[in-house]
């Protein structure tokens, strides 16, 4: 079931000549609602001359349309910030270029309802209230000077400065919550008490609340434009994203393992490409278009496992959003009757297969692979997606000489507001050290895996030794790759050591930084990692060792005294 709410809004010019308030909302349906949420915004334009209205309207309209153009995988606050920043610059630019519009600015209060959470963005002196039970809470802080004569002078607003600092906050929504977005034309004359009374009186009818607030504010002698927007939450969606992804249908994986020649909806199975404990991957041919495709589905034994089924749907959802030639692309399969998804097929082999065949990776070739890998990884990270299982087995070198990153099976995005299903998935030898001590996956841990992958291609060893499942190793400094491959140039060794460092702080911060280091190569080499003395790395161990040593020495001396 989707999120359900009712919206009420009202605005009046009041005694002024122009209404410089502007409010707007987007209430999408179905998948967009669950991915991006519903957006409500109120803005109050200010200006020396004209232009206040323009600033407010421009900001809200721009926000409403551009927010929904950001990738679904971005976190709400990141998406809002990315959209509001250029809007602000635009308003500033208009204000300075156009004499009529000089000094135009606008406040902005945004509410996003997504899933079971609400997210607020706020700048200026419009306000957002929340009524929960019988308590009303003011959720925003007015950005005005705290001096009696300057109560109306904004400290922060859209269009005031080249850089705008928004306040963001978020919390859990509850059924029955009423959110109220108001301009100062309402909260000033009515005060919190008046607003609270109106909310309680008409809590079931948002439209009536909005109208009453505006009417009362003007009746109480309000001198400003009065705008109110009221959102009543009626029903929260289930926590389960899978319900929505399945488009309301209960898709099940094929009940049996498919043999070549068998038909699956529009596809004919050609061969089994890969089989693991949970998944089955087939090469298939489309019956009418002859297009070859890779079909990924679950093992028949997992038919009744909702977690795995939802996992595959989430994987498809993510893979669909990654449009870049570093990844196989998801093909639409409108006629599917079972749980699977189709991707483009590319001839070639994985780097692991190359390793097994005994392929010798030269330093130059590996650096080239690294550059392409990091471009792909960078694209993924810009979408706020973590791959979590980068390893030679999941890197595919096509016959078209393109590198593709496969298997989004354990990829996560924190933008969806969901905790990842499996907390610590991946392949142990490629997992970053911090993940063994209950760290959370991050960009840094993905880059670590990329570093280990390159290291392994070159040396066929691992920087911290091969790690087994369920092992909790102690990590030291990575072993220099030149121990296994003395022919490696120093700049490449330094890059690998930096990428595989134990401490996430010591690694590359972003895929782009790593990429740049590889591209520049020896022209601007990365410095070798500093040797950290034991006293700094583990002072306790050092002192314990010294104490133990001294104890032994003393015991020996006592022994000598006794025997002599």
């Amino acid at each position, binding site marked *: 079931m989707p999120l359900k709410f009712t919206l009420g809004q009202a605005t009046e010019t009041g005694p002024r000549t122009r209404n410089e308030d502007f409010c707007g909302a987007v209430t999408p349906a179905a998948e967009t609602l669950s991915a991006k949420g519903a957006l409500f915004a109120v803005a109050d334009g200010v200006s020396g001359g004209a232009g206040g209205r323009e600033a407010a309207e421009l900001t809200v309209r721009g926000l409403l349309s551009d927010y929904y153009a950001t990738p679904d995988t971005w976190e709400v606050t990141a998406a809002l910030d990315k959209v509001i920043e250029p809007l602000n610059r635009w308003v500033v630019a208009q204000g300075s270029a156009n004499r009529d519009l000089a000094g135009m600015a606008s406040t902005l209060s945004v509410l996003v309802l997504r899933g079971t959470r609400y997210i607020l963005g706020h700048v200026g002196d419009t306000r957002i209230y929340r009524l929960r039970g019988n308590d009303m809470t003011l959720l925003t802080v007015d950005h005005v000077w705290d001096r009696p004569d300057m109560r109306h002078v904004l400290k922060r607003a859209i269009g005031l400065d080249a850089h705008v600092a928004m306040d963001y906050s978020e919390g859990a929504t509850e059924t029955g919550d009423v959110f109220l977005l108001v301009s100062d034309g309402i909260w000033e004359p009515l005060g919190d008490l008046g607003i609270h009374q109106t909310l309680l009186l008409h809590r079931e009818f948002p439209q009536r609340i909005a109208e009453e607030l505006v009417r009362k504010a003007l009746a109480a002698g309000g001198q400003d434009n009065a705008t109110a927007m009221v959102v009543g939450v009626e029903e929260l969606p289930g926590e389960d994203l899978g319900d929505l992804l399945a488009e309301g249908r209960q898709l099940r994986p094929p009940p049996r393992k498919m043999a070549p020649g068998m038909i699956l909806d529009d596809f004919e199975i050609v061969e089994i490409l890969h089989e*693991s*404990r949970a998944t089955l991957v087939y090469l298939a041919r489309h019956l009418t278009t002859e297009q070859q495709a890779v079909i990924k589905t679950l093992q028949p034994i997992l038919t009744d496992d909702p977690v795995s089924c939802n996992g595959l749907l989430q994987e498809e959802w993510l893979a669909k959003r990654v449009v870049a030639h570093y990844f196989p692309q998801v093909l639409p399969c409108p006629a599917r009757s079972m749980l699977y998804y189709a991707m483009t097929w590319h001839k070639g082999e994985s780097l692991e297969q190359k390793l097994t065949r005994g392929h010798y990776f030269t330093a130059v070739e590996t650096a080239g692979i690294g550059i392409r890998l990091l471009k792909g990884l960078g694209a993924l990270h810009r979408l706020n997606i973590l791959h979590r299982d980068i390893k030679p*087995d999941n890197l595919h070198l096509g016959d078209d000489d393109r590198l593709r990153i496969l298997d989004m099976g354990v990829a996560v995005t924190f933008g969806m507001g969901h905790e990842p299903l*499996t*907390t*610590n*998935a*991946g*392949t*142990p*030898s490629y*997992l970053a050290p911090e*993940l*063994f001590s209950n760290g959370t996956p991050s960009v840094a841990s993905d880059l670590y895996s990329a570093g280990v992958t390159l290291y392994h291609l070159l040396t066929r060893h691992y920087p911290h030794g*091969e*790690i*087994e*499942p*369920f*092992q*909790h*190793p*102690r990590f030291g400094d990575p072993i220099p790759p030149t121990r296994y491959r003395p022919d490696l140039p120093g700049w490449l060794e330094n890059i690998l050591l930096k990428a595989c460092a134990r401490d996430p702080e010591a690694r590359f911060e972003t895929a782009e930084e790593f990429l740049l280091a590889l591209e520049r190569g020896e022209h601007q080499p990365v410095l070798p990692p500093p040797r950290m003395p034991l006293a700094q790395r583990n002072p306790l161990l050092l002192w314990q060792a010294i104490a133990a040593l001294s104890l032994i020495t003393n015991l020996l001396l006592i022994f000598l005294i006794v025997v002599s």
Partner: protein
Amino acid sequence: MDRSFWKAGHTPTLFSAFLYFDLSFMVWVLLGPLAVQIAADLQLTPAQKGLMVATPVLAGALLRVVMGVLVDHLQPKKAGLVGQVIVMAALLAAWLFGISSYQQALLLGIGLGFAGASFAVALPLASRWYPPQHQGAAMGIAGAGNSGTVFAALFAPTLAVWYGWNSVFGLALIPLAIAFVVYAIFAKDAPDSPPPKTLQQYAAVLKDKDAWWFMFFYSVTFGGFVGLAQSLTIYFNDQYGLSAVVAGYFTAACVFAGSVMRPLGGFIADRIGGIRTLLIMYTLAALFIFGVSFAPESRWIALVVFMAAMLSLGAGNGAVFQLVPQRFRKEIGVMTGMVGMAGGIGGFYLASSLGYAKQLTGSYQIGFMVFAGLAILALLGLHGVKTRWRTTWGSSAVTSAKI
């Protein structure tokens, strides 16, 4: 261990489970240290001796399943009470009526098998009280009851010399009765228990090839451990002419080495990896057992080599149980039962095969050699599956399942 552990579960239950488990394991292997004296009185052949000490092991392995079912249907506490009553009844009968034939000794062995099956009761009883993060510690404390095997080897032969071996059964009743009372008063079933395991669950787990591998691996490590614990007294007595009492001390040293090493093996596996640990331990165990099969001249050398073998087998036990709960996160209850049973069967095989080897060839060598061969087979099997296990098992998260 932090203070929150003691607040988390039910400490009286934990300790009565430990006591119950410890003493049960003590009587489970009681026949081994006494075998020298019993065999002398009943005039048993080496093969009969071997089978007599092997019977409780086999019975324990099979009864473990029965006790598992009882635990599911009666709750652990009642199941434990039933088990203890049966064991005490068997000992009481042996003490009062005496054991005058080989068949009666075997019958007692089956009764003692219920003591060996206490594993299936004590661990769930204790562990169900504890939240996931404290499960490891709780199982460790309850599982330390393995040490009971040492007491049997240490005291039984001496008591038999003082009072006659038949009285040992009566004497064993004293600590058992105390443990029974403590258990009856202090042990309490955890408020929530997992649903009973069905036959389908067992069948489903057995479809997984890895389950069979684990059963095989454990049948070598635990089988070696318990098989040697049962047979060493006979061996030291037979091969080196040690008196029953001294042979008991020698055995106790070996068993002690093995049971101390078990938690250490788990720790090592955690650090360097379970598969790697098992590879090392199988190699060492095969080497030592193969070496000792040539019956070194000096009894002291034999003792040291046996202790070394027991150390590696004990570490192997720990390593297997570092892997099993994580690999079979959901099916852990079923898997512990199956793997434990396989271990018992391995022990039965080793103990009885040593007896038969002696009877048929006049020396124990072939029995030890075949067992060393089994360890090498496990080594090869592990080599075969290690790449697959290392690459496809994935995550290193901790288990939260309950037994």
